[in-house]
């Protein structure tokens, strides 16, 4: 289901919750589960968090509390792109991945809501699964997921982010949501955002790609590129969308103009001019800018792209020495180490893609909730070990990279 991804570990966390931050007690001495320092997957994995010995902030916390602080004193709640979240975590778009459709999509929505973390609903959901108002199966649709989220989220917490890319503009996904009665409670409480998808980490510079039966693709030829690559199945390729600095700036301004009550998020792929793109997005008024590292993505991509195209997440962060106020990152995030390193290097929050999907699949009732409990505990342990009690207090000094002079 997720080759190359630590699926077993994610599923274990979804089953066991916070206790899974430790090695399994029953396998102790027999199974070295996660205890070996295996080959790092990428630069972010290879970096290490480096606690100092002297901790001024811990003393301040000690004075504040009148007792020695522990990891349980770390406050993880934060603001993410205009929403209030219980953790510096959001659920990334899962696109139209069939694996994310139907009941699993609903289960994921319910659990993200219950924990109080924002959730992005991917582009292509409407073109592929419908909106769910007059057409088709509501449970697979955007409407189904919006409703499931809104019903389970606590007052003042979380938010839903609806993505749109170039061809989705034809389906007017944002306009549809903005004028829909179902979305109104979220809109009225300031918990609806729209995300402009400039691209994604798994295939920088390309548009969305899905595989369809030839018959199903017949009616789409005037809207999408269709490539008969797989016999009776075809590749449906969206355009990547053309962006210049002015196009990005004006699209963001138009979003703010047309949807004044929705927050504006922008998702960028890990391009080499990332810093310039982030700057344009922030200046044009984006509430959050997401950078999807080359390790990210649940989608269908030509194999050469994940292997050889786009900047790794660690390099993206390095190229943003003065990160914008609300930088969000995603890319193979599944445990606290990558998450806390990302936060220390300037991110406000991290996005879970495949990990959220696998955790939900492991247990559609509580899997994601337990997985997030585990992640939160691990993050608290790490943040407190660095002598800090909020993620916002972390900084680049907390991270060591191989070859660093420090």
């Amino acid at each position: 289901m997720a080759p190359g991804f630590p699926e077993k570990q994610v599923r274990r966390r979804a089953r066991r919750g916070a206790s899974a931050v430790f090695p399994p007690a029953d396998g102790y001495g027999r199974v070295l589960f996660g205890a070996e320092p295996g080959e790092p997957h990428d630069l972010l994995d290879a970096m290490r968090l480096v606690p100092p010995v002297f901790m001024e902030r811990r003393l301040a916390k000690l004075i504040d509390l009148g007792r020695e602080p522990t990891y349980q004193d770390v406050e993880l709640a934060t603001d993410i792109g205009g929403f209030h979240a219980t953790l510096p975590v959001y659920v990334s778009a899962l696109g139209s991945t069939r694996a994310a459709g139907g009941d699993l999509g609903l289960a994921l929505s319910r659990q993200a809501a219950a924990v109080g973390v924002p959730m992005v609903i991917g582009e292509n959901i409407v073109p592929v699964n419908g909106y769910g108002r007059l057409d088709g199966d509501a449970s697979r649709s955007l409407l189904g997921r919006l409703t499931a989220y809104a019903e389970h989220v606590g007052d003042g917490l979380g938010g839903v982010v609806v993505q749109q890319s170039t061809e989705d503009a034809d389906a007017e996904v944002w306009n549809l949501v903005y004028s829909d009665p179902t979305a109104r409670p979220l809109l009225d409480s300031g918990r609806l955002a729209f995300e402009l998808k400039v691209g994604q980490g798994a295939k920088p510079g390309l548009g969305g790609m899905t595989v369809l039966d030839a018959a199903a693709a017949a009616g789409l030829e005037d809207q999408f590129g269709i490539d008969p690559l797989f016999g009776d199945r075809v590749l449906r390729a969206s355009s990547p969308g053309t962006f210049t600095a002015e196009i990005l700036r004006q699209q963001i301004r138009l979003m703010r103009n047309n949807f004044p009550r929705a927050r504006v998020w922008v998702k960028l792929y890990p391009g080499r001019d990332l810093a310039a793109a982030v700057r344009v997005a922030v200046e044009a008024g984006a509430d959050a800018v997401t950078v999807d590292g080359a390790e990210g993505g649940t989608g269908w991509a030509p194999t050469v792209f994940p292997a050889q195209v786009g900047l790794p997440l660690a390099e993206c962060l390095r190229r943003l020495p003065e990160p914008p106020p609300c930088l969000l990152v995603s890319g193979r995030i599944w445990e606290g180490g990558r998450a806390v390193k990302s936060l220390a290097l300037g991110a406000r929050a991290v996005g879970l893609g495949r990990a959220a999907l696998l955790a939900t699949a492991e247990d559609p009732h509580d899997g994601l909730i337990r997985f997030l409990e585990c992640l939160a505990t691990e993050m608290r342990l790490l943040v407190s070990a660095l002598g800090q009690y909020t993620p916002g207090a972390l900084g680049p000094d907390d991270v060591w990279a191989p070859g660093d002079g420090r």
Partner: protein
Amino acid sequence: MTENHLTGPANPRAHLTSPALHATLRIQNKLLAAARDHLAEAGFTEIHPPVIGPVTDPCSRGSKQVDVDYYGHRYKLMTSAILYKQASLLAFDKIYCIAPNVRLEPLETADTSRHLAEFHQLDVEWAGASKEQAVQLAEDLVAQMVRRAVAELPQEFEVLGRDVGMFAGLVKGVFPRITHAEAVERLHALGHGQSPDAELDWDGEALLSAQSDRPFFVTDYPKGSRGFTDRESPTAPGMLRNFDLIASDGFGELCSGSERTFEYAEAVTRMRETGENPRKYSWYLDLMREGIPASAGFGLGVERFTRYVAGLDAVWQANAFPKLPGVVSP
């Protein structure tokens, strides 16, 4: 005055048989007759634009288009006639039409007293005209429409309790003009947080409108506040060659117009800047590739204008079968 002006008519029969509606529709009729006379005299030909098409005007603040299944192709009900108005200039240099527009407006607009999901627009387009000429035409037209209605329908205004003395300034036909930047400045001075990059928000528009004794033009909106059809100034990049006509006394916007984007490469670029996919505009872009006339024009909301002239509480009172956003009605 109607008790339920925020929620629409209690029932169709009560609405259709109300003397207020009769007076209102007669005023509306007179306004349109005056417009037809004025435009015919100025050399404009009335055309009948399509009701459905593969694409329609994309930029209407937050509203949704209505899809129509046209033999398996996704067609749209017209949100405005703009694309067809530009194309029609290949037939005549000066055209106008009075046509229904459908926009599924955000639900929050149901109680603004100013939005209908289905409304009519008097749409004018003029080949070779500048923004200034279009503004002048709109000013003359509006003044003439009101003059005729006031002169010929005193009884109707009396039924509605509308004091026509308030049009003393309007019928002289000299409306103030301020730029968008000046409007933003005024709103900031009034303590209203208007974004300089966006269209005037509804509250801001109402604030300015309430301060004026006659309609006024706001011109030169920033790019990013309007769709690709409004032409960007060749001499002041980032600024559009466009305008709105805003009524006095808090009645808000009546009319929007602009010089049009008419060059192919510029249209494609502006489509991208407004988040549109050029592919779906193929018929329109094909015409542009071969050349369509430069033009300017405007659209005057028939119900909004009637509401203003008749002094109604809400725009739905100027429509026999009103559809308030989100309200299920005939």
